[in-house]
Structures are given as structure tokens and as C-alpha cells.
């Protein structure tokens, strides 16, 4: 007997009871059975819960897969074409300067300036302005906002540092030492952090303006301050200071999270 037929039979039994009190009354078990059957039919009629299937798949993912998925989401935010163009631009700057500089020291000084400017540009693009709608959409994610932006920052910095280190050897040629690698790593890291942290705290326009102001002040200054080469007097001191400042600034991102949690 089909479900519907059985339901009709039970319904008929109840109706008969209302019409004629001498008719046998359906038992309590039969009533509960009827309710259960109605529930089952209702469940069968409603479509499959596809969200539940998705959540089951998400929960079965390993931590590694989840991290890879988050990295992919941020990779897609910047876009493969943009990554390729950034890489090509870095290579182009390197070859132009290495071909046109008289000695390693001069070449390195101008190369690091242009590479750091590119870092600022990439950071600016990665954290480009959002309107209110996009900002809400960005917060409604499988991944918390803080994880998203930190991943994006790590991507930008990781990609540029990986390219910067070998490219610096093209500029300095045979004179390439560990010190040259340090002096190419630290300014790139510093401007990346300054860009990221100021945008994070003050928004894209103000953040980028401050970062560009620092960059221009270094380029226009006659005395070298941030862009030190291994032969300079204060090379180690300045690099240690700017590395320390970068780390401190980066830690302030964690503070912002604490602030917002307290406010809530």
C-alpha cells in the first residue's frame, strides 16, 4: 500500500469516528504513526539540502586543504595576469639597470629604489578601495577577514621577495654577497609592511600617500638613509632598525583584532 493510500485510510477511520461514535477509535499508536508518516512525506517532498552536502565536504577537508583553498582565494583576488605582469616588470627593471649601471654599488642603489616603488604599487592594488557593498561581501566569507588580508599580504611579500633575491644578483654581479641579499630583502620588506599596515589602519588613500611620501623622501634626500648598500657606514645599524620597525608595525595588526573584539 502506498503512503498516500495509507494516509487516506487513517484519515477515513478518524472521520468515521467523528460521524459515528460507536465506530472503533484509532489507537494512540496509529495516530502517532500517522503523524510520523505525514512528516516523512513532507521531508520527501522538500528538495535535497545541498548546503548540508557542501558543509559535510567542507568539514571533511584537511587543514592543509583549507589553507590551500584560502591561498587560492587570495591568489584569485590579485589574478594570475597581474602576478605575471608584476614578475615581468621586476625582471625588466633588473635588466635595464644591470645593463646601464657603471658599477655594482650604483646599480644596486637605483635598482632597490625602483623595486620598492613596485612593491608599493602592488600592495596598493592588492588592497584597492572597496565600496560598502564589497566590504560586506568580503567580510561574509568562509575565512575570517584577518586571515584573508594577512594571507594576501604574505602572498604579495612572498612573491616579491622570492623574485627580488635572485634578481639582486644580476645587478651586483660577481660582487654578490650575503650582505647584498640582506640589503635587498630588508627595504622590500620594510616598504611592503609600511604599505600594508598603513592601509590596514588608515585606509587605502591615506596609507598609500604615507608610504609614497616615505619613499619619495628617501629618493629625494641627498643623504642615504633607508637605501643603504653594504659598503656604507651605517649599513648594518640602519637595516637592523628598519627590520625592527617593520616587525613592530606588523605586530600592530594583531592589536587591531584585539581592539575590535573588545569593542564587540
Amino acid at each position, binding site marked *: 500500500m502506498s503512503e498516500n493510500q495509507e494516509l487516506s485510510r487513517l484519515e477515513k477511520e478518524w472521520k468515521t469516528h467523528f460521524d459515528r461514535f460507536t465506530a472503533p477509535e484509532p489507537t494512540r499508536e496509529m495516530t502517532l504513526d500517522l503523524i510520523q508518516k505525514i512528516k516523512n512525506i513532507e521531508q520527501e517532498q*522538500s*528538495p535535497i*539540502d*545541498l*548546503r*548540508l552536502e*557542501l558543509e559535510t*565536504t*567542507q568539514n571533511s*577537508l584537511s587543514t592543509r*586543504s583549507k589553507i*590551500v*583553498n*584560502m591561498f*587560492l*582565494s587570495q591568489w*584569485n*583576488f590579485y*589574478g594570475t595576469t597581474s602576478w605575471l605582469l608584476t614578475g615581468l616588470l621586476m625582471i625588466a627593471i633588473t635588466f635595464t639597470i644591470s645593463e646601464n649601471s657603471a658599477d655594482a654599488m650604483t646599480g644596486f642603489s637605483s635598482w632597490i629604489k625602483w623595486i620598492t616603488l613596485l612593491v608599493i604599487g602592488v600592495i596598493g592594488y592588492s588592497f*584597492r578601495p572597496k*565600496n*560598502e*557593498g*564589497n*566590504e*560586506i*561581501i*568580503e*567580510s*561574509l*566569507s*568562509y*575565512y*575570517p577577514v584577518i586571515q*584573508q588580508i594577512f594571507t594576501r599580504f604574505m602572498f604579495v611579500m612572498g612573491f616579491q621577495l622570492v623574485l627580488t633575491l635572485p634578481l639582486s644578483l644580476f645587478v651586483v654581479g660577481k660582487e654578490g654577497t650575503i650582505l647584498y641579499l640582506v640589503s635587498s630583502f630588508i627595504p622590500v620588506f620594510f616598504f611592503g609592511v609600511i604599505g600594508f599596515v598603513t592601509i590596514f589602519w588608515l585606509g587605502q588613500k591615506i596609507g598609500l600617500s604615507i608610504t609614497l611620501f616615505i619613499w619619495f623622501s628617501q629618493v629625494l634626500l641627498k643623504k642615504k638613509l633607508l637605501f643603504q648598500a653594504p659598503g656604507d657606514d651605517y649599513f648594518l645599524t640602519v637595516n637592523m632598525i628598519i627590520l625592527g620597525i617593520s616587525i613592530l608595525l606588523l605586530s600592530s595588526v594583531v592589536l587591531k583584532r584585539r581592539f575590535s573584539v573588545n569593542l*564587540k
Partner: protein
Amino acid sequence: MRIALNDVEYSTGDTTRLNRITCSFTKGITYVVGKNGAGKSTLLKLLTTSIQPGHGEINYSLLVRDEQIGTYRRKLDIEEIRKIISFLPQHFTGHLDMTVERYVKYIAYHKGIPRELVKKTVEHWLKESNLTQIKRRKIRHLSGGQRQKVGLIQALINLPRICILDEPFEGLDIEEQLYFQRVLRRLSYHSIIIISTHLVDKIQQSSEDKLLHLSEGKIAYFGGMETLEAVTQGLQE
């Protein structure tokens, strides 16, 4: 799943946008209607957790069945809520410099769709929404209707438990409206769908849907669709 608003108030400066709202939303479709400035968009933004009420509270809870404890309501924290909500803003722009395909792909990852399913999911939604032909076009070059479809896809791609849509059918032709209404109807069996609209005559009436009429930041009516006609007349006056 239930969203319960208790005595919620929201003000900007001296203007009270929402005044002492108490209501709750469960699975199914709820249409939010009201004149301009009635507080529809503010209510939706509050529900997305992007703004916080100045007074009162909004609770998101889930019915949990436990063999030992029995059935109880579990309150969700903000990170859990944000995983299951999606939102279509009133004027959706997306990221204008991205192509349709790249944006939808980005959103698929963003919403936690496992990478093995991303390609299939993106292709499915683009095909169903007739966007496959223009998938390489940048969002800035799309027409209003095409951009709205991208917006709807980003809101529906992860089949959210809570789906909040501000004027979702704006700019869509009849066929497109019917397609997305079908998708939303199917989703409403298991999810809370809240739709703000001024196109009251386009609302597909169903006895299971609900209507929330806001007027000057207050609830003028909250209940079944039987009063839709009266509400429509009131709005047109």
C-alpha cells in the same frame, strides 16, 4: 535556524533609522517592503553583521538535537554566522577590474567551496545565468542586468543558510527573474531568505512566505502575505 531581533534600534547622528524592532526570521522567504527611507537597507545591513545595533540585540541560533541533552537552541558566534550568510547589496558593483569568470571563481573560493568543486560550480552558475558567453568580459563593461546576475551568483553560489538580498530583481528581464525566483524558492526549504524590494507587484505570492512592512523605521506589519494587496495600496498612496 532562527534570527531573532529583540528591541533593536539603530541611529545615525540624530536620525533614528530603526526604532525598537522585535521580530524573528525562520526558514522561508520574507519580503521586506517600505517606502524610501523606511529603514529596509539598514535592517538588512544589521542582519549581515556589518553594522551593530545601538540598542537591543540580534541572535542567530540553530536548533540542535542531541541524544543525551535533548533538543536545544545553540547561539552562533560572529565567525560562524559570517560563514553561512550571503548578501547582495542594493547597488552591486563587484570588483570592476575583474572578469566575470575570475570574480565568480574568487567568490567560490572566498565562500569555502572546495577547490575540486570550484570549476564545476563556476561553470554551472555561469551557464544557468547565461553568462558563459561574456565570462571573459570585465565587470565594468557589463550592463546593469548582467552585473546584477553576477551579484546574485555571488550571493547564491554557496547555497547559504541565510541569504539577504537588497533589490535582487532590479534590471533583470522576466525570464531571468523567474529563474532566480525558482532558485530562491528551492533554497528557501532549508534557508532563511530575506528580500528587500520596491517591486511589490513582482512578488510571487506563496502562502508560506512572509511580509515585513517597515514604515519610518518601525514595523507596520509582519505576517503572512494575505495583506500584500493592502500594503501595496498603502505604499502607492
